């Protein structure tokens, strides 16, 4: 596999980074065309070199096996969370924001980073609506709620769910609690000082929140949607458990499903997961007043943008993943610190789930004699910790590192917040996250 096949992936990333800045309106109208262009630029040469059948199988495998369940989950959470609205006169201040980010971070491990992000993003925007400069709040929101918070359980982030389905005990990830707390403390401390500075600047310019009524009243409407949120979380857990049940396995040990093409199968567990999620989204819409969505400024814009761009990203990143799978074991990664940084660096740009699996498989094949027993072999705790943290934490490095990152950006853009550009965001993560990860390395992965 030539590295030249990765050019379309780099191309689509550059488009996401540059086009909104140089030709914003054109970009908004032609995103599907651009995604299709770069996808074809990968598919056609790949078909010429490896044959049309191989190309069709690669694309279908990525669409059916990965993209479909990814976007259905995102869609479900987007719909359900859009039907919950919070009204109140709590004023966004450094203190309130710290509390919101802490709640969001802890919630991420309970309902997943995407669920927590979708649920918390609008209240955070609403409470800070009196402020003009809010992008730093959303950047830290992506760092903590959309990524780092998801490290405690397999529900938190898809890579850990993959680990769980490969034999890592469900509650093993709770061992990451000290690392989570450390990262939370450091990041919240940095956030507090940045937010305080911006908050003071708002006050100095005469901006004041509306606190004319005595006391704080908070009302949450559409609370019954939490049931549908629970349905979605259950569906995600099921998707990790069902494939291992004998009833869903063929005599050869593969997961049963509808055969699509070549080795591509839409498995029954994935179909069950998607059916539950779509049912939850449907019921959520049927049982919730349109007035709530209006108050939430609910539009399809954000999910449409993510669906289109990530379709292109998923297809064009296949060569990079194939390369990773073929050379992952030969990289000579034998220490946790190496695993942490390499898994993390690749998870920043590639899908973190396959990246996690590649390095989990690599570690499993190293024939360690101690550590956690998985279906891939025994993996020392230090290595597993480093791979898990790398995959989960460093998804925060870019907008495309993790699905909710882009969703949060899109929703914020739609609701009056100037989010940083693609490269602008990388500058934020480079200046804040990378030093924190270096600290992690010194404290936990030496």
């Amino acid at each position: 596999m030539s590295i030249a096949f990765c050019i379309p992936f780099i191309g689509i990333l550059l488009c996401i980074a540059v086009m909104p800045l140089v030709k914003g309106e054109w970009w908004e109208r032609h995103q599907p065309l651009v995604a299709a262009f770069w996808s074809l630029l990968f598919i056609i040469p790949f078909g010429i070199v490896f044959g049309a059948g191989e190309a069709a199988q690669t694309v279908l495998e990525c669409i059916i096996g990965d993209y479909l369940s990814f976007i259905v989950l995102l869609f479900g959470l987007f719909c359900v969370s859009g039907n919950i609205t919070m009204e109140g006169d709590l004023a966004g201040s450094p203190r309130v924001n710290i509390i919101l980010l802490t709640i969001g971070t802890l919630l991420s491990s309970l309902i997943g980073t995407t669920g927590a992000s979708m649920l918390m993003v609008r209240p955070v925007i609403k409470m800070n609506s009196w402020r003009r400069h809010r992008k730093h709040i959303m950047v830290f929101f992506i760092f903590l709620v959309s990524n780092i918070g998801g490290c405690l359980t397999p529900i938190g982030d898809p890579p850990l769910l993959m680990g769980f389905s490969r034999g890592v005990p469900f509650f093993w990830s709770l061992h990451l609690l000290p690392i989570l707390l450390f990262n939370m403390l450091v990041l919240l401390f940095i956030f507090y000082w940045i937010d305080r500075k911006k908050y003071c600047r708002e006050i100095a310019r005469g901006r004041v929140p509306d606190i004319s009524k005595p006391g704080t009243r908070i009302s949450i409407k559409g609370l019954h949607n939490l049931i549908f949120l629970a349905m979605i979380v259950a569906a995600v857990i099921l998707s990790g458990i069902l494939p291992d049940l004998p009833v869903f396995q063929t005599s050869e040990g593969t997961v049963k499903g509808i055969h699509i093409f070549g080795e591509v199968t839409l498995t029954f567990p994935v179909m069950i997961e998607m059916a539950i999620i779509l049912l939850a989204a449907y019921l959520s819409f049927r049982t919730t007043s349109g007035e709530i969505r209006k108050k939430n400024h609910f539009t399809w814009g954000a999910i449409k943008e993510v669906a289109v761009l990530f379709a292109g990203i998923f297809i064009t990143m296949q060569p990079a993943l194939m390369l990773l799978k073929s050379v992952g074991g030969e990289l000579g990664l034998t220490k946790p610190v190496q695993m942490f940084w390499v898994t993390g660096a690749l998870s920043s740009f590639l899908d973190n789930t396959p990246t996690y699996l590649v390095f989990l498989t690599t570690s499993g094949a190293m024939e360690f004699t101690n550590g956690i027993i998985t279906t891939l072999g025994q993996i020392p705790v230090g290595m597993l910790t480093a791979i898990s943290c790398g995959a989960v934490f460093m998804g925060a490095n870019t907008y495309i590192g993790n699905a909710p990152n882009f969703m949060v950006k899109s929703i914020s853009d739609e609701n009056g917040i100037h989010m940083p550009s693609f490269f602008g965001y990388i500058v934020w993560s480079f200046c804040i996250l990378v030093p924190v990860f270096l600290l992690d390395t010194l404290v936990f992965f030496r």
Partner: protein
Amino acid sequence: MNYIPEKRHPSEYKEEDLRVLAERIYELDTKVYEHLGSSLGRVFTKDRERCVEELVWEMLARNQGHIVRSDLALISNMARTIRDRQVKKELMIEYDKILSDVTSLPTSFAEGDVLNEQRSRLNKTNLHTRFSEKDHTIICIGRTFGSGGSEIGFTLADKLKINYYDAEIFSEVLRRLEAEKDHVHDKGGFPYILDQENKDRYVDTRPAFATEQKVTFHQKLKEFSRYHGLPKKDAIFFNQSQLICDMAKKEDFVVMGRCADVILANNKIPHISIYITAPFEQRLRRVMSVNPRLSEKKAREMLNRLDKKHVRYFKFYTGLEWGKAMNYDLCVNSASYGIQGSVDMILRMFKGEEE
């Protein structure tokens, strides 16, 4: 057909043109908000007059033009999500026109004069040429502890026959916030001699920026709800700001401290800002003579501590440096004139302008 705005020289632009443009931007935001029915992404959340003023200022200022364009981009983001195609089309046409007009603005309106028109327009001494009769006389006094500022302010209010506000503002804010008044004290910075009858009220009192007393977790929770999640000091400051602005629309007054000058400037309300201070040793002598129970060491410590707190408080809420001459219309060294002399001097300036 594309809308092409007329290109003009900076000198051809009148502020009225920019105001009309700012009104159109505000109007567009309002329409988008009304059609969406959600305030979640509304760009201009303050009252019309203030938002328009800010926009005009941003268009006038050399390096602020990009902010107006960013605001427009945010409005267009929202407008694009409107479902009614006809309405969306109309609003986007208006957006395009406004954007063209904003883009065609010159990058600078700068001229050679040192006069800051924004600031000068808020100066009460210019009222006779620039403001209508409905504007009130508001004098904001900032002072160092022991400089006699409170007495000067009180006497000035007495001579001008207008109200004097200090502790009253704080009490009113507490009433608004339904706080337990027993636990918060703010009776002004210094006991003033003129109010001899109520002298006891001013002894051993704490200014608004004094260190808060320790509270239990339960009290903290109650305060969290009462003050909308804001720190108590901030909630009080925000309410004070609102109250000062409300009062400024109704009556003439002298207000002591509370960053009132900056609050009024931010809200485009005409006023005079005066800073009163005196050399440290002079202030020390005065503090000790007014309060004989204080030793020199304690008085010195108190003055230093209060000065530092003043600086921090002012910086936190205004972003400006307290006591820096350029932040005020008039700075007075009360040691040079005495209390009565300072009052006379300010009155002469004030009355001279009126005559």
